């Protein structure tokens, strides 16, 4: 009987620890990522936060109204999302569309407090900040809707997280999407005919 009880208690405690470990990891990792971000800015290279990481910081996202900022990692696989929001699509894409996704339980939890008109700042590796203004926030069903990246207006920033915010369901199909537009529309030279997919130089600001 007592062994059974012990087993129950241990497993519950383990579950609890694992559950608390996820947000803790998210917080701690951001501290480490700050260092890696500083390093990659200084060296202008992809610098991995720890040697075995399969992701690296690509941008810094700041929400001045909420007093929150975080390092954005490359890719949206489980590994990168555990430590920070992941960039699905970067500014080098066709029209400068940036799509960032994050866990609703950790980094992107504050997304629910963003309102139209709020400011967002995105810092790229060369240290320049790009200002964005939130246009709207919507809930979409990921089963019936896709992100048609070709049809997004130039200079769009999409922040994506799971919805609803307070639920235990991890596989729900709903997503909360915040759409922001760049403050100063960056003038972009159209793609040269070269197919190598090089980034075009960006004027403006």
């Amino acid at each position, binding site marked *: 009987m007592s*062994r059974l009880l012990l087993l*129950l208690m241990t497993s519950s405690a383990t579950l609890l620890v694992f559950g608390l470990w996820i947000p803790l990891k998210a917080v701690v990792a951001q501290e480490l990522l700050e260092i890696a971000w500083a390093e990659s800015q200084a060296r202008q290279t992809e610098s991995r936060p720890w040697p075995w990481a399969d992701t690296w910081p690509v941008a810094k996202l700041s929400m001045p109204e909420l007093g929150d900022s975080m390092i954005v990692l490359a890719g949206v696989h489980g590994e990168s999302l555990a430590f920070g929001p992941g960039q699905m699509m970067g500014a080098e894409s066709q029209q400068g569309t940036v799509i960032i996704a994050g866990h609703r339980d950790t980094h992107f939890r504050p997304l629910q407090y963003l309102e139209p008109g709020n400011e967002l700042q995105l810092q790229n590796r060369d240290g320049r900040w790009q200002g964005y203004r939130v246009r709207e926030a919507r*809930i979409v069903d990921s*089963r*019936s*809707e896709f992100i048609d990246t070709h049809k997004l207006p130039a200079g769009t920033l999409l922040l994506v997280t799971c919805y609803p915010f307070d639920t235990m369901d*991890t596989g729900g199909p709903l997503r909360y999407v915040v759409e922001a537009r760049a403050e100063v529309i960056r003038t972009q030279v159209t793609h040269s005919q070269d197919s190598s997919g090089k980034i075009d130089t960006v004027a403006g600001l």
Partner: protein
Amino acid sequence: MMFSALSSKHSAFLLCLSPPSQAAGAPPETRCEYVCVRSAPPLAASCSCVAARVLGRPSLASPRRALRSSPMAPHGSRRAYSLTEGLSARQRLRILHFMEGISLWLAVLLMLFVQPLYAEASTGSEDTAGVLHFVDGKGQWQEPALVLGSDFDIRVSGLIADSRLVRTFRNTSDRWREGVFVFPLPEKASVYGLTMKVGERTIVGEVQPREEAKKTYEKARDSGRHAATVEQQRPNLFTTRVANIPPGATVSVELNYQQLVSYRGGVFELSVPTTLTPRYMPGEPLAATPQQWQGGWAVPTTEVPDADAISPFTVGVADVAADSHRASVRFTIDAGFPLARVSSPSHELATQQDGQVMTVEPQAGEIVMNRDFVLRWQPLAGQEPGAAVFHQQWEGEDYLLAMVMPGRAGKTRLPRELTFVIDTSGSMAGQSIRQAKEALQLGLETLAPGDRFNVIQFNSQPHALFMQPEMATANNLARARQYVSRLEADGGTEMAPALAMALQSHVKGRGEVSADASPDESTRVQQVVFMTDGAVGNESTLFSQIRRQLGDQRLFTVAIGSAPNRHFMREAARWGRGSYTAVQDPSDISGPLVRLFAAMEAPVLTDIEVRWPDQSASVQEDSFPRRPGDLYQGEPLLQVVRGIPPAGELSVSGRLPGGGKWQRSLDLQQADSGLGLNRYWAREKIDSLLDEARVEGQEPDKAKITGLAVEHSLMSPYTSFVAVDATPARDPESTLVKDDLPTLLPAGSQPGMTRYPQTATFAPLLVALGLLGLMFSAAIVLLQRRAYP
């Protein structure tokens, strides 16, 4: 949902803890233990067992069985047994009373813990009012409630394949549904019948002018009657709507269509399209609303005003119900001659032969509708038909269908100027682009010294390898190979500029070449090979462009992917005076392409003239195709005519590549009887009327086409089928929910649009479960300490 799991666990605990309270007054005959063990995981089972031991009934079978599965169980049970042994009846009663108290407290605690979660969850869905677009008023996402099944029964006799396609819409929800499904049919199909089946009732549909049919359908739908309609959006793309599908019931829609079997190089081929590649819609959106929130359905653009009607959601196989979007296919081939081989490049086959009749089914039974089903059959070597005539009398009119196969010509190879155009748009991503690259590499291999060539790739913009066609030297070929191997699929499908670049580069190159005045330059054969999946919505504009810019050139199309737009491929080749080839799967690339490249070396027969016994103007008016194009190696000449009785001789003549004359005559009295020739003729006539309008740049003769379609009861751009039940089935109070059925993403292709990533962690769930477990153990500890000091 996780909530439901949680709550069921919760109720299991309560059940397990409450029996003692009942048992206090009544003899221990309650069946609670059994209930617990059945409905709850081992945790609950072990608890029920404890309760059972405390009650002093160690002989219950079910808890024991549950215990045996747990490694900890033997110790626990033995101990519990020994504890209860020394207790008197009074003590037992006291324990029971105590446990009742504890269980009540625990229940209250659990309620307190779980209740806020419920509350949060419900507000979470409610406060989204006004921003939701794809969730209904109650905050619930709409699941596809209709399960779609398809059944193809295809009978081939001679050159005509007659198909019966039954689509069943099974409503799995408890509300009335309207199903809308966009689906492809073979590119030259003549749809001639629609029948709706609701339970035992069968309603035969009729042809009506498109607008009228739409009104009939909508009226029936709004009045609650069963109704079905099928509309043509493109010659190979149709929309079916089925109104008032009762909850839990099935409505099936039977479609009859026929098509001509393709015969080339001694091989007969028939394809059954099951899905469509999402099309690219060029042009600016007409509506000012943001597009990406429209939910997969593209918005009308300046180039494609009906974009929303031809772009259903495309989802993966995993996104539909396990038994939805499956098709059973059955071919019955009565070719009229012994068959050597029946094969399919797309699916494994199970064949059965009965005399000359062959029955073919896919080996796997039902197939997933994400790949075209292609079937090929071959006559015994040496018995390939060289000519055939079929005759049918329909409503007093004679219809004749004739096929003539020109013989193989001797090879006279002319130097060529070959331009390869490869589609690198987003819709080609995945297997398609690999196929296309492989095909292109094969094409490069066929170049001989003395040929000129160029490679053009296009997505949102075209890009050429060379400024103008270059000589096929080893150096240039190596450059081309490298260029091709680096191609990647991404971006839009802007075909018009690519076509212009390919068709006009020839003209430009030629102008410069004439300066060198090398004698053979003028005789150079100019060919364009166009490799694409044809996933565009503005086909018509492109055909006009091909016609305008073609000049002396020839355009060959190679259809790539699991579900190419065959209509586009075939018509583009026809307008380009070339031929079209479909590549089915990676292992199948070389076969068709080698044939194509071999055929491209020279047309076998040009300047073809067809003479029917009666050469009156009306007969010439009614024979199709009116001006037969050039024939390439292995291609037959097909002619259909109205108003000629099966008597006399048909003579066909043409010019061979060397300049010689080729002639052949067919005795029409030998004609076999055929079926459905009138429909084939009518479809050809309608197509030719549409072609004429396109050539002249005018609106097609709508009245004439409608009349023709109604006469032969055919689907056309201006006529639709509609079937309406007489009596209303749905009472006006219950609402009707529209369900747009998705189509499946073609196998091997990547979605052109990005999916939303999964962005939730297990943290809240783990925390909740952990806390719950700890509270529970705390309660038990409390209980133990109080009960057995």
